[in-house]
């Protein structure tokens, strides 16, 4: 009887683990979660790079324009939402004359990282086009919480 209970409990625990793994493991395709962690850049790292006297990366905002107009990373360029065909076309045009060795940083920050529809398509397009030094700014919650609220520098524009 006790052995049976033990087996039953073990079985239940196994199912619990599978369920937890499923719930955590499932990520919608096309979201930022699909980007390899080695390609991510933390906000503090980008701030350090921008403040250093060294060569600066190209920084592209691939999210909504209204948020870029409110605040964006100094020196960054608005390209267009990576989830839209027009945004990807604008990105393709922008990098036409850029060397494949150029360091490029993409960011959005429109919504929580796992729900962002913009950075992953933009990242994939650049990688497919042969750009080997593409980083994506990791904004866990959004640009406001993970950049502006931390007091990192911003520019505003229309």
């Amino acid at each position, binding site marked *: 009887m006790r052995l049976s209970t033990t087996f039953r409990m073990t079985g239940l625990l196994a199912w619990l683990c*599978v369920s937890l793994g499923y719930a955590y493991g499932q990520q919608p395709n096309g979201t930022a979660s699909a980007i390899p962690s080695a390609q991510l850049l933390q906000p503090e790292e980008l701030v350090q790079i921008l403040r250093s006297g060294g060569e600066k990366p190209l920084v592209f905002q691939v999210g*909504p324009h*209204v*948020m870029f107009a*409110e*605040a964006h990373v100094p020196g960054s360029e608005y390209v267009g939402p990576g989830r839209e065909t027009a945004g990807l076309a604008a990105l393709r045009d922008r990098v036409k004359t850029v060397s494949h060795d150029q360091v490029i940083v993409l960011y959005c920050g429109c*919504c*929580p990282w796992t729900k962002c529809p913009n950075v992953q398509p933009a990242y994939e397009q650049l990688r497919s086009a042969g750009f080997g030094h593409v980083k994506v700014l990791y904004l866990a*919650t959004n640009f*406001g919480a993970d950049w502006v609220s931390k007091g990192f520098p911003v520019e505003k524009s229309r």
Partner: protein
Amino acid sequence: MRFVAIFAMGIALARALPGSPPSSPRTPTPAAARVAPDFSRPDLDRQEIRLSAYRGKIVLLNFWATWCAPCLAEMPRFAEWQQKYGPRGLRILGVSMDDDVAPVRTTYRRLKLNYPVVMGDETLGAMYGGILGLPVTLLIDGEGRIRFRHDGETGLEVLEREIRELLPGP
């Protein structure tokens, strides 16, 4: 059947762990709450909507966009609340932060929203302290003061409790 229950329990547990949708309410006391900046914009039917015209009502002001998955998940509930709490004085007002109005109209129809939506921009965003990530939801009391603010995904049960707290009556 038991396995299904355990599976469901696992999912529920996982969602309760860190990494689940964060909720970051700011809950100023009534005395400290600042008055919500007034604005006037046309809604999708080109009817002028002025926030201050809602004085005396409890306003749920929701900044959203069509590309924001968490926004789209909560908006059908807002429509339910508009119907459920409208007679007690709740007014829901959506502000889309989309760059274009066309997808907003499509989404409005698809979700069968029953409350007005106006288009936002960086000016309106700046008036509200920066809308630099969505969704952002504010609850404004009958005197026009911001009583609750949620940046990011919000626990809908929390939001509904706050609405009931602000509404008059039982």
